[in-house]
């Protein structure tokens, strides 16, 4: 097969890719880079957290971890990482164990388990998620990991983790909410219909009349 001479790399090509000898097959997701960013964020949190701890350390004795064990891990494995993720999901969408009158929470509908599904993006940054939360927890509440904290303390840790508005942790929070509220979960409790034959025969689905003035004849602007 005829090969063209190797030219200087395109400005958007990485130096390694520019060399055809090491050109790897395309990959669908650039997950490793996201993990890399999250790792940077984690190290930033680890570095910043002690300063925060100096200002906010409580004088009360820490509660025993067993006081705040979750009633279920919501599908997460019973490992240190699994307990952190379940506590994280419970912090984002509180479960019925601490909200008995409200809707089910993330752990009640199996949301933590989705973080461990290898087919979902969350599985790619589980380690970093646990690292960040535990690092901040141990800095703010010496000697105690995230899973061992009181729910109010977990709130403080998550607030700290989200202090940077560009933090990748925002995506972890959104995934926890998506996993919890989507149709198989809390959404159904709130009235989301799930599988259905359609509402076309239900007069309640539409007002059926014009609700505003139109300026086009067919929906397209000229």
């Amino acid at each position, binding site marked *: 097969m005829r090969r063209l001479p190797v030219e200087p790399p395109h400005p958007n090509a990485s130096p390694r890719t520019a060399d055809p000898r090491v050109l790897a097959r395309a990959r669908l997701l650039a997950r490793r880079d996201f993990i890399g960013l999250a790792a940077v964020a984690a190290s930033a949190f680890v570095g910043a957290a002690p300063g925060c701890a100096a200002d906010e350390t409580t004088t009360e004795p820490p509660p025993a971890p067993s006081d705040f064990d979750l009633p279920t891990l919501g599908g997460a494995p019973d490992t240190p990482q699994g307990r952190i993720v379940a506590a994280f999901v419970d912090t984002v969408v509180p479960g019925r164990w601490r909200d008995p009158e409200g809707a089910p929470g993330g752990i009640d509908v199996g949301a933590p388990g989705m973080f461990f599904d290898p087919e979902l993006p969350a599985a790619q940054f589980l380690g970093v998620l646990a690292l960040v939360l535990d690092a901040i927890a141990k800095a703010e509440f010496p000697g105690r990991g995230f899973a061992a904290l009181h729910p109010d303390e977990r709130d403080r840790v998550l607030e700290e983790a989200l202090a940077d508005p560009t933090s990748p942790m925002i995506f972890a929070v959104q*995934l926890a909410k998506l996993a919890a509220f989507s149709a198989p979960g809390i959404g159904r409790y709130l009235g989301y*219909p799930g599988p259905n034959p359609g509402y076309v025969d239900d007069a309640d689905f539409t007002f059926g009349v014009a609700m505003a003035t139109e300026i086009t004849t067919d929906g397209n602007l000229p």
Partner: protein
Amino acid sequence: MEQYDAVIIGSGYGGSIPAARLAEAGMSVLVLERGPRYAAADFEQSDDPRYIQRIVDLVLSKTNVAFRTGKMVGGASIPMDGAHFRMPQRSFEVVDGLGRRYWPDVYSRAMLDPYYERAEQMLSVRQLGWTEISKAGGLFAKMLDTVGASAERARLNYTDCRQCGFCAQGCIYGKKQSLLYNYIPLAESHGAEFRAGCLVDHLEPVKGGYLVYYERFGVARHAFARRVFVAGGGIHTPALLLRSQNWLPALSSHVGEHFNNNGEHAFLGILPPEFDELSSYLCWKGMDNAGVMSFHWFDSHDFTLHPGGGIEPTVFAADFAAPDDAVLPSRAWGMPYKRFVETVYPHRIIAFSALGLAEGHRAVAIDAAGAPDMVERDRSAYDAYLDRIEVVMADLEAQTGVRLLPTVPRPLAGTTSAHLLCSCRMAESAADGVVDPDGQVFGYENLYVCDASALSFALGVNPALTISAIAERTAELAIAKG
């Protein structure tokens, strides 16, 4: 070695349309699609992320970008809401900082209208009647009417919609006229082959055409074609060209640049309590596309507004802090947020997005393994565009009592979108873009880019129909060329 008159990479609008037209013209056509092939019976009425992940890809990057792309035969025509608008003439006339049109001179609404019409007929696009518009759409229109703003009934590709609310999940009833029901069967009836599960590595020009190197089921393969159409979408098309640049050394330096999310900026609108009197409204009753949109601010502020439905937008509410607010929780997670969702969401939330004539602020690159990635570019023009939107939103909030929340914090605005445009943009010359006005890659005869990446600039409306119209034109020109 397999030989074809045309190999087409990608089976969305930009791939299936040329496949149908070239096959109709008697050419042998192979379409390589990285995803699987599904039929209506394979789709589910589910928002389960595990199911959603089967039909769309999230491209995550070191810049926190999370873009959605279709990954199946039929591409983005399947996980989408069915909106198909013609691009307003004003969008063709946008100029850059030097006063030069982004779009090539030959492009205008009048020039594309015959191709729009052809695509609309194939895709069964039509304007909805008010009786087909859900209460979510009706309340959105009512909100705009309150401030004297107009709202149009949308143009969608549904026939006899059941209004079940699971359009973007693939439509189990086969009522959304995705490519599975028109161009793809037309192409196959003329002998085109759609081959699923094919990951294309790179292209190489050889005498009389191109070799397309790809992998299927772990086996490396290649096919020869006289002409190649790249239609992998706004992220995967530039990534493929960048992986091929050692064999395509004359590629424009604009490959991957100018990536544009069509100015998409999403909000949640929390309706005031008095809107409850209108109905026992549930925002998820009815089709995903709420069926209306507004051009009211297009001439003055460069954006259009589009409501949506479904439960998914709720979870993407930005992290916000409003501890003394009567409506909003103090933050977008935890107990206050859960209570907020329980009490407000089922009855009083409308999700909507602005689309507009915004400059891009990212570029598509590839990592060491050749996978697509996103890199940041200057976002000052994009931020100015967001400023224009947010001025209007603040006014809308003040006049209607509707509380508006952006779905991502401002620094992350533009990090998620379903509109992935302009990363191999069409231009008059290689000095400004990647493909010529006929869709052919500068410097490479019979190599075409035929998807959202070839658009010259943002549209301000949903891009599917314009991608289709340009694909019709590109195919027509390629056939005429012989």
